[in-house]
């Protein structure tokens, strides 16, 4: 399949290993990525907090650019960031609700010759994996099943709430997809308290203690549940769970050492890519548990 691909900002900034691992995994899943390199930040809820119209117009611009690719054969728009998914879905809800409002927004976009038409399909890589590629197909592609790897899912708020806006229901349990993917890759899903909670990142500059306390607690819960690692479809969660983990450990006064993988990295390991190809060496918390396991299955990784 071919997708109009919105990688987001953080995946090309502080978590560039995410962007790299998606690029490495895509051809193995037969996904052709047409990157929307002129598109802009989704606003992460912060721009909407400043001005809703500004956030709506910026995302309408990204949607319009994606629709140009869709007209030329892309199946849908795909993102790799829970926060992008949530922030963009919120704007899309308003844009799709009213033709009058959409016309006002399109008026601003018209200077650039762009127009957003309602009803774009914009899916996170996680949703594409389950709904478009399919778990059965994914299973057939697994070369190194994640046998005995105990993985804790960490979804990120924006991709699981609010359920009505994100079309989450019993027929389409998108808030369970990460569990399903871990199982399809042969891993063991760890049930722990924090899987659907907030990583705390949005208030890291406003109330650092509360922010790190959230990250620290979820990581500690995963440690107590004997997880080998966490996996997340959200690079912003990754910042608080991995980049800030040494600070979070101080905040909760515990040793954590919990590796946190990006979703494409976990998929890539099962599809047979090496940890280095997936950029695991760039993480702050060394994914030792994952690497030990990979060595047993994949062979030496070298260069560490």
């Amino acid at each position: 399949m071919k997708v109009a691909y919105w990688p987001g900002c953080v995946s090309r900034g502080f978590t560039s290993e995410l962007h790299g691992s998606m690029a490495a995994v895509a051809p193995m899943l037969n996904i052709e990525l047409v990157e929307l390199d002129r598109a802009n930040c989704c606003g992460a809820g912060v721009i909407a907090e400043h001005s809703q119209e500004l956030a709506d117009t910026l995302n309408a611009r990204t949607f319009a650019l994606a629709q140009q690719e869709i007209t030329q054969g892309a199946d849908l728009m795909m993102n790799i960031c829970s926060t992008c998914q949530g922030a963009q879905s919120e704007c899309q809800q308003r844009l799709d609700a009213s033709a009058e409002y959409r016309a006002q927004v399109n008026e601003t976009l018209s200077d650039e010759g762009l127009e957003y038409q309602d009803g774009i399909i914009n899916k996170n890589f996680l949703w594409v994996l389950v709904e478009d590629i399919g778990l059965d197909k994914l299973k057939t592609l697994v070369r190194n099943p994640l046998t005995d790897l105990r993985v804790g899912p960490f979804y990120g708020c924006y991709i699981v709430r609010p359920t009505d806006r994100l079309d989450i229901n019993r027929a389409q349990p998108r808030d369970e997809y990460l569990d399903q993917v871990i199982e399809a890759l042969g891993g063991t899903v760890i049930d722990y308290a924090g899987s659907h909670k907030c990583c705390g990142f949005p208030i890291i500059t406003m109330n650092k203690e509360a922010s790190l306390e959230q990250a620290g607690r979820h990581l500690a819960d995963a440690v107590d549940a004997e997880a080998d690692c966490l996996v997340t479809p959200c690079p912003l969660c990754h910042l608080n769970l991995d980049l800030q983990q040494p600070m979070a450990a101080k905040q909760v006064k515990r040793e954590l050492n919990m590796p946190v993988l990006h979703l494409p990295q976990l998929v890539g390991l099962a599809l047979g890519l090496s940890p280095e190809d997936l950029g695991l060496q760039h993480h702050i918390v060394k994914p030792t548990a994952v690497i030990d396991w990979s060595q047993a299955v994949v062979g030496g990784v070298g260069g560490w």
Partner: protein
Amino acid sequence: MAEFKLKIRRYDPETGAAPYWDEHTVELEPHRSVLEGILQARNEKDGSIGVRCSCRSAICGSCGVRVNGKPGLACHTHLDDALASAGEDGVIEVEPMGNMPIIKDLIVDMDAVHWKKIQRVTPWLIGKEPVPEREYIVSRESMIDVTQSMACIQCGACVSDCLSMEVDPLFVGPAALAKSYRFVGDPRDAAHEQRLKDLGEDKHGIYDCTHCFKCIEACPKGVAPMNQIMRLRRIAGNDFHIKDRNNGERHEAAFVKNIEKNGILHEADLLPDSYGGKFHPRAVPELISSLPIVMTALLRRKMTPAKALLHPHEAPEGVKRIFEVVEGRDQRNEFNLYISGTDADNEGTAEVAELIEAAEPAGVAPDGTEGSSA
């Protein structure tokens, strides 16, 4: 009639015994409520089950509980819906709400985490002076807007699931902040700025919310407390320019400036700018404390010095133009779904709307309050 299995969380702090699960089978029609199930179990099986309720019609807010892990009103949850969301064993789990101490079984103590906080936001109208001879005249939209937060019945479901409150019990919280918006959004109130300054400067105020959407999901009345908190922030930062000590306004301004300049987020600038800039006295200790992480990140080639210091990306002209147009407007153009509804909702009601419009004087309220874009 059908049989339903209820698993009720029991706990009596006075006994010193640990909490436990208690299972009862009740017989009721499927459209009856979980509350009726609990009451049947109490009346017929075990008179010691503690549950608080009054109106049984989803208006008094007394019977907030968690059903299958999700907070809501026991009287507003049908047994068949509860069964549908139950686990594979088909047992409906009923627990007390979270974030609050348990008095007994399903009854929680809402005083410290809910009622005191409602009191803390001055939950009454501070009228504008001089008091008009007759009524205060306000726009229709501004009143529809505040009816959303007025719909709150104080059940505590949002407080139960608030993830910020879970780690910071002093957080003013979703219910009280939604209540605060009820007055900040009310054009008749005279103390908007003071209210916002108070809640912006409080470390546990409007900037302590992480946008996790839990309260929106929890509320049985559609109040969407988080949306009201975002409105409070928008008005505090943009209308009153309140530079709070928590960097809330600075972070928002820094983020917006960052995207206007770069098109996509340049994180290396965002952090120091959120504290007032790289050389601001507020930023220096923050930057020093994050040095070990920065060093590790550089060592692992998570980022390179060039990437952190240079600006490889510049906003496309189209993005700059959007900022110019939208930020240049005299009045905020805010499409409010709660007021306007969707086109699909409004189908066939256009004629009625026209009649209402014709009956009302045109234009914006004299106090300049925001209305819908429609």
